[in-house]
């Protein structure tokens, strides 16, 4: 982890400087004699970005593998939750920034793919500006990783996950209870299926033949509904997993720890279920980024094709995730 963090941080720092330099010397029209040099430099920046971002994207699941590997080292830790009790603010920061960086890096790679597929690279400037933001997040994430790995010393005794996840006043129970009342677990469960099914239907509408025959107004309504339900779906899925799905699937009816669910091997395919949900949700966001940045002029056709694929991937991931959960709930 430390090696990957240092490697990607140095590449990221170099990339950040190179991007600023390229942006400052960016011209829409380049003299013919400088064209080859300019193209080579641009190509190098983007190639470096692709390598660095791909490495950084893998770091997200890797981070949890690292936490899991520390469990046996930390006195009192039963699962990853115990490890998160050492340098808690840094771990919280890393757990928040990692999905954000995964999301925007994925978005950038898709924008780059669109730009690369067009002969005149009309999105080069936009991509460079976007890359600057991505580099900022990458640097913060990388510095956080290095700080955590160096400072993390498993010397103190930590508490078990049950003291946080299984108490009656746990946040995952209190928040839904405040919204839905005492029977919140049942309502959450219904809402989980409802929001996922609606989302899948909306995504499938986007790839059906009827999509072309719809008026722009209806298309916009469907698109905005996708975004809205996609966002609502995030807390609904997280709370339902913690409150309903994880205890049932782990066969521990009173244990709500998502770290045990994910990493203790009680449900071996749990990371796949969660991973599919994450990719499905992020794919909706990535389509939003593509619509925002790449849907003009020359890139339009390629973007449309990519959006179709994104719709397909997102619908598949949600459907696959919900099928896996349902099979487990029925057969366990």
């Amino acid at each position, binding site marked *: 982890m430390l090696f990957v963090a240092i490697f990607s941080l140095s590449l990221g720092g170099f990339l950040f400087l190179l991007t600023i330099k390229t942006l400052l010397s960016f011209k829409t029209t380049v003299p013919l004699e400088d064209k080859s040099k300019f193209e080579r430099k641009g190509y190098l920046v983007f190639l470096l970005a692709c390598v660095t971002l791909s490495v950084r994207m893998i770091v997200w699941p890797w981070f949890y593998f690292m936490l899991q590997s520390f469990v046996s080292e930390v006195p009192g830790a039963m699962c990853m939750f115990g490890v998160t009790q050492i340098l808690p603010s840094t771990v919280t920061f890393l757990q928040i920034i990692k999905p954000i960086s995964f999301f925007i890096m994925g978005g950038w790679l898709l924008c780059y793919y669109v730009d690369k597929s067009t002969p005149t690279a009309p999105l080069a400037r936009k991509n460079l500006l976007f890359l600057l933001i991505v580099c900022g997040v990458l640097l913060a994430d990388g510095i956080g990783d290095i700080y955590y790995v160096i400072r993390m010393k498993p010397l103190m005794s930590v508490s078990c996950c049950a003291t946080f996840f299984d108490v009656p006043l746990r946040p995952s129970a209190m928040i839904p209870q405040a919204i839905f009342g005492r029977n919140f677990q049942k309502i959450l469960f219904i809402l989980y299926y409802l929001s996922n099914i609606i989302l899948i239907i909306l995504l499938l509408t986007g790839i059906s033949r009827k999509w072309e025959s719809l008026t722009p107004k209806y298309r916009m309504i469907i698109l905005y509904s996708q975004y809205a339900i996609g966002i609502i779906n995030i807390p609904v899925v997280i709370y339902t997993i913690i409150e309903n799905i994880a205890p049932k699937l782990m066969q521990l009816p*009173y244990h709500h720890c998502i770290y045990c669910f994910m990493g203790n091997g009680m449900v*071996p395919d749990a990371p796949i279920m969660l991973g599919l949900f994450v990719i499905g949700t992020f794919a909706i966001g990535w389509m939003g980024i593509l619509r925002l940045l790449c849907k003009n002029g020359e890139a339009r056709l390629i973007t449309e094709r990519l959006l179709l694929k994104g719709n397909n991937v997102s619908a598949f991931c949600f459907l696959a995730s919900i099928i896996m959960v349902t099979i487990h709930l029925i057969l366990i």
Partner: protein
Amino acid sequence: MTKKFWIGLIIILIVALMGVYYQKFLKNPHCAYDGSPVTPIYEVDIVLKEKSTKKFCSIYCATQWFKNNVTLIDHVIVTDEIRGNKIDSYMAYFVESELITNETNDNRIHVFQQRQDALTHAEKFHGTMTDDPFSLDE
């Protein structure tokens, strides 16, 4: 929907079924007393003097086997119903309540690591604290 979409769904279906199969048949062994699958939350492990372990689906099955094989037993490990932690039976709190853990043998004895959990359960399901059924007299 493309062919890839359906193939992907079939793969996911197979992965999920394999996960269930692993949980039901590979991870969860069968009870050494009545042969039924052992639910992790109610698992009882009896460690023998020759270092092998016998797994049981409930306190009832484990005590039945325990009574007939006391001389062979080294110690007994029970599972906390709240957290799923495995603890030595002499450290656990036992509650006999109206709640049945296993309908086939009508087991009503519950195991807790924390005294407070045991008291809460006893209050909720009209139970009483009982002695360790696996106490080995020296």
